C-alpha cells in the first residue's frame, strides 16, 4: 500500500466538495449524491487502508511553517475514530437534503475531522480540529442563525489550548508527534491543557452543553453533522493522551478526577432527561449521556475501561445518525430508539455499559465508588426512558429530513448486534487500546469473538445474548399490545438548588456598574478621548513609556 | 565658534517659523534655519552637503516667500505660548546637547534637537498649511543633518532627499478640507 494512500480518506471528500462547488456555481445541484460518494469513499478508504495492512501507516509531506510537519498516520486509534466520525456522517449526507453550499461545507467538515484524526502531531490536530469546528459553526448558522449552536469562543479556545500544548511540546521536546513526544514531557499542566481542550471541544460538562442543545433546533441537518464530526474529537484527544504518556496519565489522581467528571456528565444528562418536557428533549440528552459514560471509562486508565469507552462512542455515533433521522412522532421507531439509547438488554449499549461499570470496580483504589455512581446514573436513565415513551413528541422536524425506517433500522441494529459485542470489541476497540496502552501499562482485553474477559468475570456475549435475543423476539412476538398514554409527565425530581443558582446567575447578569462610575468603563465615552488625536494623550503616553524603561 | 553660531541660527530660524504666520516671516525663518543647518554641514567638512542643504532650503524659502498668507505676522496676538515653547525648547536642547551627552558635535546635537523638536511642535499645533509645509521642509533638512551624528559617513543621499522634500513640499498644491 503506497504511503500516499493515507491521504485518500481526506482527499476523497475534498474532491467531492470541489465537484459540488463546480457544479453548484454552474447552476447544477449535485450535492446529495456527491456528498454521499465522498463520505462513503472516505469510509471505504479507511477500511481498505487499515484492514489490508492492520499496522500503522505514515506519510510525512514536510514542514508546514508553524513548527510542525504535515505528518499523517493511520493507526488503530485513527481507524476507530475515523469510522466513528465518517459512518454516521455518510449516512446523514446520503439521506438528508441540502443546498449545494451546505453540502460543500458539510463534506469539507468531514474531511477536516478526518484530518484531525489522521494528524500525527498535536498542532496539526488542533489546526484540523479548529477547521472542523469553524465549518460546523458555519453550517449551523447558515441553516438557522437563531437556533442554538456551540459557542464559537469555547470551540476556538479549546483548539487554541490544544495548539498551545502542541507548541509547548515543540519548544520543549522538539516534536509534537503523538508517538514521538517523550513521556516526561506530558507534565500535569500540559495534560490539563490538552484535557481542557478535549472537554471544551466535545462540550463534556455536567450542565446542558451544545451536544444536547443542538437537538432542539428546528432542523437537524446541521445538528446531526456537527455532533457526528465534532463530538468524538475531544475523546480522541483523551485517548491520545495515553499514547503520549506511554499508556497512562501523569498522575493516577487525574484518572479518578476525569472518571468522576464523566459520571457527573452522565448523571447530569440523565437528570435533565428524566425531567424533559417532550421526547425530543429526552433524545437530545442521549449523546451527552453516552459521552459521560465513555469519559468515565476512558479516563480509568485500564484496558477494559478504554475498550468500553470506545464501544460507547461507536454506539453514540450510530445513534447520532439515528436521532437525526428520527421523526418527532410516537411509533415503533421512537420506541426502539429509546430502548437502544437506554441500553436495554441484550443490546450493544447494554453490554458496553456493563463492561464500563465493571471496569470501574476492577480498577481498584475505590474507583468502584464511581462505578456505583455510574450504575445510579444508568438507573436514572432507565426511569427517564420509561417516562419518555409516553411524552409528547416535541418540536416537529421537517418530514423531508426524517427517515423513520432507517432510524428504526439503525436503532434495532444496535440492539440486535448485542451478541456481537465481543467480536466488535476484538476487531474494533482492542487494537486501538493496544496502540495507546503500551510499555508498563500494556495489557489487553481477552475473550476473542465469543466473550469479553474482565479481571473478575467473563461476559459471554455471543452464547448468552443470542438465546436471550431469541427469547426476547419470541416473547415480544407473543405479547399483546399495551396502550401507551401520551401525556405530559412530571419530572421525578428537580436538581436541588437549581432555582437558587438560577436566581444567582440572573442577579449576576443583571449587575450593572453604578451610574456615577459608568462613564469610567463606558467605551463609547472613552473612545473620543482615545481616538480624538489629543497631544496631551500622546505626551502622557510618551512620559509613561519613558517612566517604564527608566524606573 | 562658527558651529555655535550655526546652531544658534538653526534654533533662531525654527523659532521664527514657530512664531510667524505670514509668508515673509516663514520664509525668513526657513532661510535662517537653512543657513544654520548648512553651516553645520559645511563646518564639519562636507561642503557639497552644505550646498545641497542650502540649495534646497533656499529654494523652499523663495517658494514660501512667493506664496502663503501675506505679510510678516511674527508673534501675532496670543503667541506667548509659542514664545515660551521656543525658549523652553531651546533650553532643553542646550541642556541635552551640552550636559547630558558628551563628545564633539555638540552644536550639531543642539541644532538637530531644537529644529526637529520645534518644527514638529509647529506642525502638530498649526492648522495653517503654509506654516505646516514650511516646518516640514525644516524638519526634512534637520533630519538629513542628523545623519552626521552616526558613526559612518551617510553620503549625500540624505541631503539630496531632504532638499528635494523641502523644495517639493512647498511646490505641493495643498487643498483645504472639502465636502468630498
Amino acid at each position, binding site marked *: 500500500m503506497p504511503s500516499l494512500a493515507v491521504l485518500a480518506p481526506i482527499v476523497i471528500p475534498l474532491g467531492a466538495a470541489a465537484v459540488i462547488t463546480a457544479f453548484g456555481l454552474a447552476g447544477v445541484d449535485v450535492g446529495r449524491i456527491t456528498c454521499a460518494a465522498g463520505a462513503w469513499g472516505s469510509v471505504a478508504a479507511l477500511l481498505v487502508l487499515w484492514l489490508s495492512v492492520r499496522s500503522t501507516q505514515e506519510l510525512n509531506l514536510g514542514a508546514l511553517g508553524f513548527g510542525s510537519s504535515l505528518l499523517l498516520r493511520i493507526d488503530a486509534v485513527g481507524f476507530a475514530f475515523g469510522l466513528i466520525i465518517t459512518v454516521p456522517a455518510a449516512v446523514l449526507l446520503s439521506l438528508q437534503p441540502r443546498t449545494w453550499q451546505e453540502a460543500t461545507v458539510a463534506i469539507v467538515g468531514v474531511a477536516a475531522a478526518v484530518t484531525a484524526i489522521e494528524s500525527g502531531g498535536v498542532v496539526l490536530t488542533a489546526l484540523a480540529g479548529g477547521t472542523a469546528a469553524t465549518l460546523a459553526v458555519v453550517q449551523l448558522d447558515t441553516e438557522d442563525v437563531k437556533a442554538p449552536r456551540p459557542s464559537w469562543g469555547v470551540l476556538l479556545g479549546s483548539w487554541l489550548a490544544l495548539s498551545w500544548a502542541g507548541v509547548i511540546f515543540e519548544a520543549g521536546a522538539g516534536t509534537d508527534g503523538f508517538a514521538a513526544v517523550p513521556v516526561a514531557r506530558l507534565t500535569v499542566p500540559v495534560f490539563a491543557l490538552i484535557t481542557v481542550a478535549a472537554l471544551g471541544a466535545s462540550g463534556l460538562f455536567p450542565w446542558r452543553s451544545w451536544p444536547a442543545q443542538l437537538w432542539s433546533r428546528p432542523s437537524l441537518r446541521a445538528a446531526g453533522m456537527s455532533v457526528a464530526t465534532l463530538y468524538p474529537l475531544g475523546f480522541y484527544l483523551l485517548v491520545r493522551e495515553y499514547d503520549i504518556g506511554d499508556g497512562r496519565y501523569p498522575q493516577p489522581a487525574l484518572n479518578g478526577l476525569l472518571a468522576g467528571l464523566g459520571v457527573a456528565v452522565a448523571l447530569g444528562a440523565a437528570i435533565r432527561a428524566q425531567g424533559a418536557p417532550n421526547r425530543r428533549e429526552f433524545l437530545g440528552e442521549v449523546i451527552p449521556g453516552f459521552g459521560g459514560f465513555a469519559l468515565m471509562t476512558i479516563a480509568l486508565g485500564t484496558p477494559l475501561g478504554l475498550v468500553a469507552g470506545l464501544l460507547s462512542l461507536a454506539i453514540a455515533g450510530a445513534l447520532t445518525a439515528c436521532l437525526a433521522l428520527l421523526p418527532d412522532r410516537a411509533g415503533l421507531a421512537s420506541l426502539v430508539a429509546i430502548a437502544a439509547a437506554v441500553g436495554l438488554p441484550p443490546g450493544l449499549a447494554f453490554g458496553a455499559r456493563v463492561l464500563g461499570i465493571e471496569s470501574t470496580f476492577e480498577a481498584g483504589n475505590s474507583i468502584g465508588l464511581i462505578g456505583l455512581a455510574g450504575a445510579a446514573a444508568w438507573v436514572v436513565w432507565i426511569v427517564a426512558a420509561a417516562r419518555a415513551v409516553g411524552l409528547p413528541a416535541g418540536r416537529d422536524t421537517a418530514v423531508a429530513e426524517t427517515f423513520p425506517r432507517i432510524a428504526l433500522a439503525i436503532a434495532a441494529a444496535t440492539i440486535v448486534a448485542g451478541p456481537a459485542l465481543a467480536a466488535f470489541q476484538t476487531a474494533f476497540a482492542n487494537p486501538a487500546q493496544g496502540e495507546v496502552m503500551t510499555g508498563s501499562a500494556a495489557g489487553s482485553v481477552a475473550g476473542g469473538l465469543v466473550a469479553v474477559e474482565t479481571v473478575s468475570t467473563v461476559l459471554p456475549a455471543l452464547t448468552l445474548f443470542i438465546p436471550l435475543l431469541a427469547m426476547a423476539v419470541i416473547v415480544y412476538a407473543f405479547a399483546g399490545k399495551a396502550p401507551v398514554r401520551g401525556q405530559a409527565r412530571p419530572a421525578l425530581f428537580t436538581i436541588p438548588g437549581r432555582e437558587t443558582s438560577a436566581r444567582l446567575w440572573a442577579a449576576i447578569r443583571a449587575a450593572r456598574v453604578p451610574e456615577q462610575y459608568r462613564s469610567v468603563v463606558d467605551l463609547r465615552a472613552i473612545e473620543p478621548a482615545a481616538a480624538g488625536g489629543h497631544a496631551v494623550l500622546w505626551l502622557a503616553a510618551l512620559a509613561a513609556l519613558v517612566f517604564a524603561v527608566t524606573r | 565658534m562658527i558651529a555655535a553660531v550655526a546652531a544658534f541660527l538653526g534654533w533662531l530660524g525654527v523659532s521664527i517659523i514657530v512664531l510667524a504666520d505670514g509668508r515673509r516671516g516663514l520664509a525668513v525663518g526657513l532661510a535662517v534655519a537653512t543657513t544654520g543647518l548648512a553651516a553645520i554641514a559645511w563646518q564639519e567638512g562636507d561642503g557639497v552637503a552644505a550646498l545641497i542643504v542650502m540649495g534646497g532650503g533656499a529654494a523652499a524659502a523663495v517658494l514660501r516667500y512667493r506664496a502663503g498668507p501675506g505679510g510678516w505676522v511674527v508673534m501675532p496676538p496670543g503667541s506667548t505660548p509659542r514664545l515660551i515653547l521656543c525658549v523652553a525648547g531651546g533650553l532643553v536642547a542646550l541642556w541635552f546637547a551640552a550636559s547630558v551627552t558628551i563628545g564633539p558635535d555638540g552644536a550639531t546635537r543642539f541644532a538637530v534637537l531644537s529644529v526637529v523638536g520645534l518644527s514638529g511642535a509647529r506642525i502638530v499645533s498649526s492648522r495653517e498649511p503654509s506654516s505646516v509645509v514650511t516646518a516640514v521642509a525644516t*524638519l*526634512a533638512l534637520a*533630519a538629513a543633518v542628523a545623519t552626521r551624528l552616526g558613526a559612518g559617513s551617510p553620503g549625500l543621499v540624505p541631503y539630496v532627499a531632504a532638499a528635494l522634500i523641502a523644495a517639493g513640499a512647498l511646490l505641493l498644491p495643498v487643498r*483645504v478640507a472639502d465636502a468630498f
Partner: protein
Amino acid sequence: MPSDLATCLPLLIAAAAALGLAVVMSPARISRTALLARGGTGLAGMVAIAGAPSLDLLVLALLVLAVLHASLPGKRDFSSRLQMPVVAVVLIVLALVFARVQGPELLQRLAAVGIAAGLAACVGLLPYIHVLEPEDMVAVSPTVWIGFVGPVAATAILVRARGLLSLDAGTDLGAMLVGLGLVNMLWGTLAAWRAESSTRAWHYSFMADWGLALCGFGLTVADGQAAALLILVSIVFGRLPLYLASRQALRENQSADRPINLMVAAVLAGSAPFAGFAARVLLLRGATQMSWPLALVLAAGMLLWLPVSLRLGRTLGQPRGRQALGVGIVIAANAVVGLYPLPLLTLASR
C-alpha cells in the same frame, strides 16, 4: 537581495495583490485610474521604505509619503492629516539622535522609547490613533497607514532598529512592543465590538490585529517575528480587502448572515484554517519560549476577536459579481497561507 528588503518582500507582494484586488473590486463610480495611481504611489513609497539603506532615509521616505497622503483631497484638512505621521518622524529622528550620541545608557533606552512610540504613531495605534473620518474614502483615510503602508514601514523600522540599539535597549524595546501590543489588542477588540459606527469598528479591528503583530515583534524570537509577519500579511491581504469590500454595504447599511459572511468572520477572527490561526500558533510558540504567563494572556486575548469578527462579517452584506469573486480570493488565499505558511516565511527569512 538585501535581507531588510527580503523581510518586507512578502508584505510588498501582499500589498501589490491587495491593490490589484481593490482595483478589481472597486465599484464603477470610483475611478479605477485614480485608485491605481494613488495605490501605486503608496506602493512605490513602500518599496522605497523597504529598500532604504538606512533608517534616516527610511524616515525621509516616510515623510514624503505622509506629505503626499495628507495632500490628497478629503474631509479632513492637510495639517491634521499630516500631524501623526510627522509625530512619528520626529520621534524616530529623536530616537536616532539618542541612539547615536555618546552618553549614559539611559539615552539608548530613550531611543527605544522613540522607536516604539514612533512606530505606533506611524501606524496609528493606541495611544497615537490617527483621527478617522468615516465618510472619507479609504485612500485618504488613516486606513492607508494601518492597513497598507504601516505593515511595511513598521517591519522595516524594526529590522533597522535592531542594529542601532544596545542589547538592553533592544530588550526594553521588545517589552514596550509587547506592552503596546497587549493594550492595542484589548482596546481594538473591545472598541470594535462596542463602537456605534461599523466603519470605526473596522478601523479598531485593524488595531487589534496590530496588537498581536506588536507582541510578535516584541518577543524577539524567530517564531515571534514569523507570527508578526503572518499577521501583517493577513492584515494587508485579508482585513484590508475585506474592509474595502464592505464599504458599499456599510454605506447602504446592509447586513447579512450568509455562509460567506461567516467565512469572512472566521478569517477575521483568526479561526482555523486561516492565516490568523497559524499566526496565533506561532505567537503562542514564541511566547511559550519567553514566558508562559504571557502565552496564557495572549491565548485568552485571542478569544476577544470572535464577537467583533461576527459583527464585521455581517457588515459585508451580500457581495455580488466582482466583489464576491474578490472576497472568495481573499478567503482562499488566507486559507492557503494558514495551512502552508512556509513559502512566505522562507521568502522573508532569505
